[in-house]
């Protein structure tokens, strides 16, 4: 698949949240936790989905649904584990799909018409054959950064 494209390609992990398909460069994903037990944190910033247990550590996991102002998920969610300079954190998504190969040539920046919050969170999109794959960069989802970018 990757041979088809002339420009550099990368592997992205596709995740579904609501009706949108998002892609995270696979190199940034430390691990995928399938429907882990979660612990809500009362009084936490709104974008914190809860705590998840990962290899003896308790990770703070950001909820993409909450971040985007969507309804809470009705079924248990999957968690992607990322690493940031301060440690690890998680990201709640509805479900994790397959790994896709995307080429740089198919990537386009965020449209100017996108709402400001999403402008901040998304890193453009890849044009797949039949749909768009929204690019997510883990560093934009770091809880510390979110706390300063979107104070409650």
């Amino acid at each position, binding site marked *: 698949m990757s041979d088809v494209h002339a420009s550099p390609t990368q592997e992205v992990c596709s995740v579904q949240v609501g009706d949108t398909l998002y892609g995270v460069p696979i190199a940034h994903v430390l691990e995928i936790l399938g429907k882990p037990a979660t612990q809500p944190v009362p009084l936490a910033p709104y974008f914190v989905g809860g705590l998840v247990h990962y290899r003896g*550590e308790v990770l703070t996991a950001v909820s993409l649904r909450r971040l985007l102002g969507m309804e809470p998920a009705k079924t248990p969610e999957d968690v992607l584990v990322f690493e940031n300079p301060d440690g690890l954190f998680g990201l709640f998504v509805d479900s994790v799909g397959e790994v896709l190969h995307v080429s740089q040539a198919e990537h386009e920046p965020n449209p100017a018409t996108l709402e400001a919050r999403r402008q901040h969170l998304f890193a453009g999109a890849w044009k797949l054959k039949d749909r768009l794959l929204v690019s997510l960069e883990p560093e934009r989802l770091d809880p510390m950064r979110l706390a300063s970018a979107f104070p409650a």
Partner: protein
Amino acid sequence: MDDLTREFLLESREGLDRMERCLTDLETHPGDTELLAEIFRSVHTIKGTTGFLGFSRLEALSHAGENLLGLLRDGKLAAHPGIISGLLALMDILRGVLQSIDTTGAEGESPQADSAMIARLEELQHGDASVTLAEPVLAAVETAPSHPGKSRKSRGAGRRSSRQHGDSQGTPPPAEPGEAGPPKEAEAALRDAESQPRPAPAAVPSPSARPATQAQPEPPAAATPGAADSTLRVDVELLNRMMNLVGELVLTRNQILQATSTDANFALLGRRLDMVTADLRESVMKARMQPVSHLFSRFPRLVRDLALALDKRVRLEMEGQETELDKSLLEAIRDPLTHSIRNAIDHGIEMPDVRVAQGKPAEGLVRLRACHEGSHVIVEVHDDGAGMSIERIRQKAVERQLVPPQRAEQMNEREILQLIFLPGFSTAAAVTSVSGRGVGMDVVRTNVEKIGGKVEVDSHAGKGTILRLRIPLTLAIIPALIVHSRGQNFAVPQASLTELVHMSAGETDSRIEWLENAALYRLRGRLLPLVFLDRLLQQAPRERTAPCDIAILNADGRRFGLVVDGLADPEEIVVKPLAAVLREIGYYAGATILGNGEMALILNPGAIAQNANVSLSSEADDGLGDENRAGHHDFLLVETGNRRAALPLETVVRIERIPRSRIERAGSRPVLRFEGQLLPLDDAASELIDAGDDPEAQTTVVVCRDGDRHVGMTVSQVLDVTGGKQLEQAGSGGVAGGITLLHERVTSIVSLSGIPSLECVAESPAMEDFQPAEGQR
């Protein structure tokens, strides 16, 4: 930085620490050859390895030190304070260079300081001719080539000569690479074995070629081989990681145990797994423990330097050095302890002449003590100095506007002492280089509380101060009670839990009392503020009549009841840090994973109390002795004649029925013989007059303490002991003096000081015998 250099840095720092300890010891035992040998070894090791690694500055410095130490060790020179100061100064320079290597990879340059240092050490070698005992000529000749500014070659010659020097004492230093001089027969075998694996200096250092400094042959004379021989350095990160993995293993074990409970064979294996896991966990925890001597060892130097700088004489005693504490905790109390010792010496210990004038030995004593107490380690800093004056603290606190004057007046001793922990508090008259900048005690408290510890202070003016740090044994694991609130688990640290109260469905509504919005619970007659966890955390509210449990917590003197839905088992929990965004909420001290695999947030009782505005109560421990609680007092309610009066209960010594005959008269005033003393008596009830002259008639006397004297008061009847609140005078905001509200009636409080003392009574026959009475009950 390569492994070799890193190892060298670690090793050299340890060597210097050891040297520092020995040097201060040496000051008290100048002739101790073992100490000298130990110091010599430390410096020598550094020198040996630096030459090998090509750190010429370190080499030159340590070489100069070694020459001086050689003389000392061989008894050619006696240690005196000048030498010790010189060697300590050398150590500081060496530390600086090591630091520079650590940060920049290079030694840094400071030729002037170096040559000054070397010259100083040279001078010390020759300076004190009177104590040079034997072979002065030889010593001078041998050390001559080590002058600064000489070529590297000549230093090499000096080194060789000092080695011969060493050999004559049976201390074989490690062979220098590239310097394979003919070894003496006695150590030939050893020396060969040691020097063999070393590559030529030109060879690229590789991990396998590390100089085996730890395995350096000990001189046969030195009886105490270092513990270093059987130990291994492990990165703390690795231990942390192991700890986590063990935690993980514990959880997996729990799940396996649940899954296999039906199969007998598996159950057996499961139990075995259980045991091994528990053992493993304990071992890993143990691996993180270090004796407090690691920390204490730096204090003799600190005390010495401070005492010198302040012209005071201070002796440091250390106890319980073998007490072990988690490595990270040891690090965490390093600064608080240093602060405390500085304080003790700067503010506590007086100048020698002042001490002598007060009948104390000129030399002050600072005692550092560590011991286990339950699941805590207590570290005490005790000084026999001036102590703290309660009044001065009160004044200072008001002056610095840390408390309003009115509040300061009402505070008791314990509360006043707590003021020293407020930021910006300092009683030092002048800011010295040592302390007095108003930072210190608050830093001590903050740092200790950060690791779940407590700081207590006890001080008596003129006698000294004890500062007690109460440190949990390990940061990683704390005993906690798991509670539920709205279907979620929370962990409450046992350290702050005092008792539990359960309320069944019917009871909640009647037993929780409300004062406007404040919920209260009557615990043994006293009102305890309640905090509802569900409301605090803005969870879905619970029904008001639902059963609940109250966990009664004491967070640094703030007592309150935490209302939760239910209780689970107490559990030893592993504290996991929370991300910064969640720490900012403040109510959580961390998170944990419970035995059943669920997670729980660890509550921070101190923060909850603070947020709920629970005030400090002055109760010593569990609600005893609350008479000093601001605004609330217990009174003895009495009837005198036909009116009611209140006596503060804490002043009442005894209530007695006595025959009229025991009451005598001194002049016109009635007096009572009471336990061999004579009390002035206030005939408030006019009992004595009414009773006439019948000597058999009895009267009730309440004996009270007023300051340091005792007084008596006749009463018609004792009615009750009851609690009352002081009344505020309308509009003034101040407390109305002399009256209180008892049984819903305004009652006047008897003013004991209004009873005239016996000194005013003329010609009393018992005057000479009168002494202020001691309080007895």
